[in-house]
């Protein structure tokens, strides 16, 4: 009987409700699914970018070749895994261009067949093969070398087969000091350059097609355990560049949050509409109960019904996601600037379904519990039917599921928890707010005239005071809805700001500029129409004492396994490069302490020192600490005056330690400078001329790397934008439904008021005031709390600096307000047409 009632009769009688339920759930799930799909795509494209930088899936490298037993260990791990590999050896060498007998330093990339696994080496003409010598465009230009000419490399001479115009590989870490040439390893071995006593980078690259991220992590651990020598490193693509790694992290986390938001919005919708529906059905359920249906059976029937609904939703999602994706793909590809795949796998998505079912069922549980608590016999007798109240503890199963799901989806205990507790905060604040407001209004308005400003306003206030449960529900739904919308928008804004690379992107770093060379160099560059930027002095020093106590160093033991450990050891052991600077650079921001004083003639005191925030943390330094530096034999006292934050997106030279001007000017120093992006021709000319006159000045070419990172940033920004809007659309739909429903529920009240003499205009005014007030309050709270949570998540999990994006504050509020107004007007249109005669008994 249960099946007949709940699966057939009920659904047949109220098709619209079930369609609505299906619609909302589908919306939430399709939202989740699409975000999932898009984010998988984006991530894999970014992964691919990162892989291009590394040229392979995993690399084992060292500054020397692997010893025999190390090679054995390597084989023991990898032989059982289907893979491809090549060896890559990078060495510096002086090579000679035969035609003019000029020698210069180059980086020789010795490669084996297969290089590169990812990315490509593009020649000006022809195809890159492992046949012989290729030189980079830079070298060709600097040297005026051309195809066919001969280069003496070591003991052998080689003809230049081609000129490389694009090389997607960047090198393991660090930048290239000299332009590159490419020569097959077997050829390099004949040059005599690879002998005992050579230094270079020796890398074993692997391509493992079947492996996924997690597998690589495990492989890395395995390799590190079998290759204990600190000299050996194992690198994965995302470690190739700090920037790309970080971008991908941000993107993934943000995407999962958006997906969660979209889903919760739809759950809110479900709860709201299901509750109204239950109230409508209560009388009939009481009748069923009267005719023998047990409460337990009733519950089971409802759960079963929901299972059916959910199954339908799942089918809809599975069937529609592909066509939907195909339809949106061109638009998405264009917006994201990524060529999205034409198909994708649904496997991972299907895993979500049972979890989603549990989650959505759990939000209905409080309603079911309330239903179970209803004394059905009593209900039938009374004129007024009311659903048993649900208690707050009825929500515990849902809350647990939600918390768990948030953590699961974001893969982070921190983010998931922050999000969850953020929502709890919204709930708490909204409830407190609405209850307090109701109490206050009740106190003031009870027994008073109905007219307040006007009658409609007075009625709206009474509605506020007396709506009780349903008002709180709507308010909460609105508040949570707007919070989530605001959260996504603000987080979007905060992250996007981080993803903006400075306009100033360097193409070359210059270093070892001697003091006396600086002016002439600047003059030379100006003459060439080139502006040198970021000219910074660099002074070598050692941190000797902190607060009078000798600064102790970290033991150089076998504990230095992670990159962080190494960096830390380096920090504590070696000297520091200091600079002196009055103001913060555009990439820096004061986070604690005070700025340097404008000028000081008091040279007797210690110099004020500014430290980079994380550096200070690693070194255990605090504000006010007295630090002693040994600057090439001379001791200089310093006091830590402030901490700075340096933007991770800046590629300009930034120092861990800035000393205030006036103390270090006399010390021996060299200068760094940056050449911003300019056209290749001028860049080459500049390099040539500089080397001619200032032969000790060296260059590091970063143009290509930065170009690539800039591209990744741009794509990420766009992806985030698209995903935000996906979540938001769900939010808008739900809020629209809510507003519509609320208005429509007033049907009989409105009919009554018409009977009493209210005109259509007056009724509309009443509705607008009532919902306008409700909505404004809810949205102001929602937007503010959403911003707050965004800042919390942003700073705690994403390490973003907080700020408020007013544009993303007001514009959406405005948009939502208009939506709300339009909804109210539209819904009220029908409701206001309510016929008073329907109030009569015969109707």
């Amino acid at each position: 009987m249960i099946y007949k009632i709940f699966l057939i009769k009920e659904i047949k009688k109220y098709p619209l409700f079930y369609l609505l339920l299906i619609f909302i759930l589908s919306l939430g799930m399709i939202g989740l699914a699409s975000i999932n799909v898009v984010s998988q795509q984006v991530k894999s494209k970014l992964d691919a970018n990162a892989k291009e930088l590394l040229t392979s899936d995993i690399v084992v490298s060292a500054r020397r070749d692997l010893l025999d037993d190390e090679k054995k260990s390597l084989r023991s791990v990898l032989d059982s895994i289907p893979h491809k590999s090549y060896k890559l050896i990078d060495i510096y060498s002086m090579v000679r261009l035969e035609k003019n007998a000029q020698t210069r330093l180059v980086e020789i990339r010795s490669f084996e067949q297969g290089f590169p696994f990812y990315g490509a080496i593009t020649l000006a003409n022809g195809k890159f093969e492992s046949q012989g010598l290729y030189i980079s465009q830079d070298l060709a230009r600097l040297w005026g070398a051309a195809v066919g000419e001969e280069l003496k490399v070591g003991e052998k001479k080689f003809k230049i087969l081609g000129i490389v115009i694009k090389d997607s590989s960047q090198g393991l870490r660090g930048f290239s000091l000299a332009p590159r040439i490419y020569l097959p390893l077997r050829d390099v071995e004949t040059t005599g350059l690879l002998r005992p006593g050579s230094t270079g980078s020796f890398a074993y690259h692997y391509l493992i097609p079947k492996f996924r991220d997690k597998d690589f992590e495990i492989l890395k651990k395995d390799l590190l355990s079998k290759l204990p020598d600190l000299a050996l490193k194992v690198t994965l693509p995302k470690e190739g560049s700090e920037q790309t790694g970080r971008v991908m992290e941000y993107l993934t986390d943000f995407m999962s949050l958006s997906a969660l938001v979209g889903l919760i919005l739809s759950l809110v919708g479900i709860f709201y509409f299901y509750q109204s529906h239950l109230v409508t059905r209560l009388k009939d359920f009481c009748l069923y109960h009267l005719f023998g249906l047990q409460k337990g059976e009733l519950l089971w029937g409802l759960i079963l019904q929901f299972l059916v609904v959910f199954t339908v939703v799942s089918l809809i999602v599975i069937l529609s996601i592909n066509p939907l994706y195909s339809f949106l793909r061109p638009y998405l590809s264009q917006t994201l600037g990524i060529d999205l795949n034409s198909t994708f796998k649904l496997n991972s998505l299907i895993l979500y379904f049972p979890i989603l079912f549990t989650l959505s069922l759990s939000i209905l549980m409080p309603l079911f519990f309330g239903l179970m608590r209803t004394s059905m016999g009593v209900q039938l007798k009374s004129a007024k039917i009311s659903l048993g109240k649900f208690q707050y503890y009825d929500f515990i199963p849902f809350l647990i599921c939600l918390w768990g799901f948030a953590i699961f989806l974001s893969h982070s205990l921190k983010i998931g928890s922050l999000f969850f507790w953020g929502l709890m905060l919204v709930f708490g604040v909204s409830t407190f707010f609405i209850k307090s407001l109701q109490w206050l209004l009740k106190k003031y308005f009870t027994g008073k005239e109905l007219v307040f400003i006007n009658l409609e306003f007075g009625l709206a206030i009474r509605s506020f005071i007396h709506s009780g449960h349903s008002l709180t529900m709507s308010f909460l739904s609105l508040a949570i809805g707007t919070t989530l919308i605001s959260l996504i928008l603000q987080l979007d804004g905060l992250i996007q700001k981080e993803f903006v690379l400075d306009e100033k992107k360097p193409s070359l770093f210059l270093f070892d500029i001697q003091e006396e060379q600086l002016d002439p160099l600047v003059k030379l560059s100006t003459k060439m129409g080139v502006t040198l930027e970021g000219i910074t002095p660099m002074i070598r020093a050692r941190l000797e004492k902190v607060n009078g106590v000798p600064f102790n160093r970290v033991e150089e033991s076998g504990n230095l396994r992670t990159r962080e450990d190494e960096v830390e050891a380096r920090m504590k052991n070696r000297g520091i490069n200091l600079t002196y600077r009055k103001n913060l650079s555009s990439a820096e921001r004061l986070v604690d302490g005070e700025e340097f004083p404008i000028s000081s003639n008091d040279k007797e005191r210690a110099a004020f020192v500014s430290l980079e925030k994380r550096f200070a943390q690693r070194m255990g330094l605090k504000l006010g600490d007295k630090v002693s530096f040994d600057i090439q034999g001379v001791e200089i006292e310093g006091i830590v005056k402030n901490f700075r934050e340096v933007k991770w997106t800046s590629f300009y030279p930034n120092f861990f330690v800035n000393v205030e001007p006036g103390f270090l000017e006399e010390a021996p120093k060299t200068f760094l400078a940056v050449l911003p992006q300019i056209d290749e021709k001028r860049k080459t000319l500049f390099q040539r001329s500089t080397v001619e006159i200032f032969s000790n000045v060296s260059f590091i070419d970063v143009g290509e790397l930065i170009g690539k990172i800039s591209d990744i940033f741009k794509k990420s920004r766009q992806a985030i934008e698209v995903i935000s809007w996906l979540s938001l659309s769900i939010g808008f739909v739900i809020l629209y439904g809510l507003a519509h429903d609320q208005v429509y529920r007033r049907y009989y009240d409105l009919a009554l008021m018409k009977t009493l003499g209210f005109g259509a205009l007056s009724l509309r005014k009443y509705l607008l005031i009532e919902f306008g007030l409700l909505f404004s309050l809810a949205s102001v709270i929602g937007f503010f709390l959403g911003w707050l949570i965004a800042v919390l998540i942003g700073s705690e999990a994403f390490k973003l600096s907080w700020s408020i994006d007013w544009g993303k504050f007001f514009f959406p509020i405005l948009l939502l307000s208009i939506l709300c107004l339009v909804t109210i007007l539209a819904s009220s249109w029908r409701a206001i047409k309510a016929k008073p005669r329907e109030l009569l008994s015969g109707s």
Partner: protein
Amino acid sequence: MKLVTLLMILMSFAAHAKTILFLGDSLTEGYQLSREEAFPALIEQELKKVFPSTKVINGGVSGATTASGVKRLGWYLKSKPDIIVLALGSNDGLRGLRLEQSEKNLSEVIEKAKASDIKILLVGMKMPTNYGETYRKSFEKLFVSLAKKYKIPLLPFLLEGVGGKPKLNLPDGIHPNTAGHKIMAQTVLKALRPLL
């Protein structure tokens, strides 16, 4: 009589009290090591056993080339060094800078030191094999010819017995570790003794 003896003893000490300046790069500075572990400090320790008032100035700056030599020497002249151990040039070589310029720079340093009556020990370096024989030979020759020109003692290779040995170097394969520095200290000390 007592006074004269005392004076003579004091003078003999004073005669041996030396300030030694080590003007070099990361090898001198003791890259990634504490100052006490770098070879100049080790030498100081040794010398102090015999000459308690020996002072050693570690003028090593990682990444320094010969171009910075003269300026930095000027900075250290304030400390009135008696001996200078000139160990610059590695970075010039590693960066493939023009050797004629490197030679010129080193000459300036030597001349300036000589003008201030400072004894000089010139420390030579060798380039890794991957730099090619021609260059390596020219690089080595640089120090030899300078030593000859200015008639100053030459320690041919700072990393004698250390270079290329994984156990004596840091993971980067270029900079010696604590054990490596101990050997460097011995090498340099041996070359220094005649100057003391």
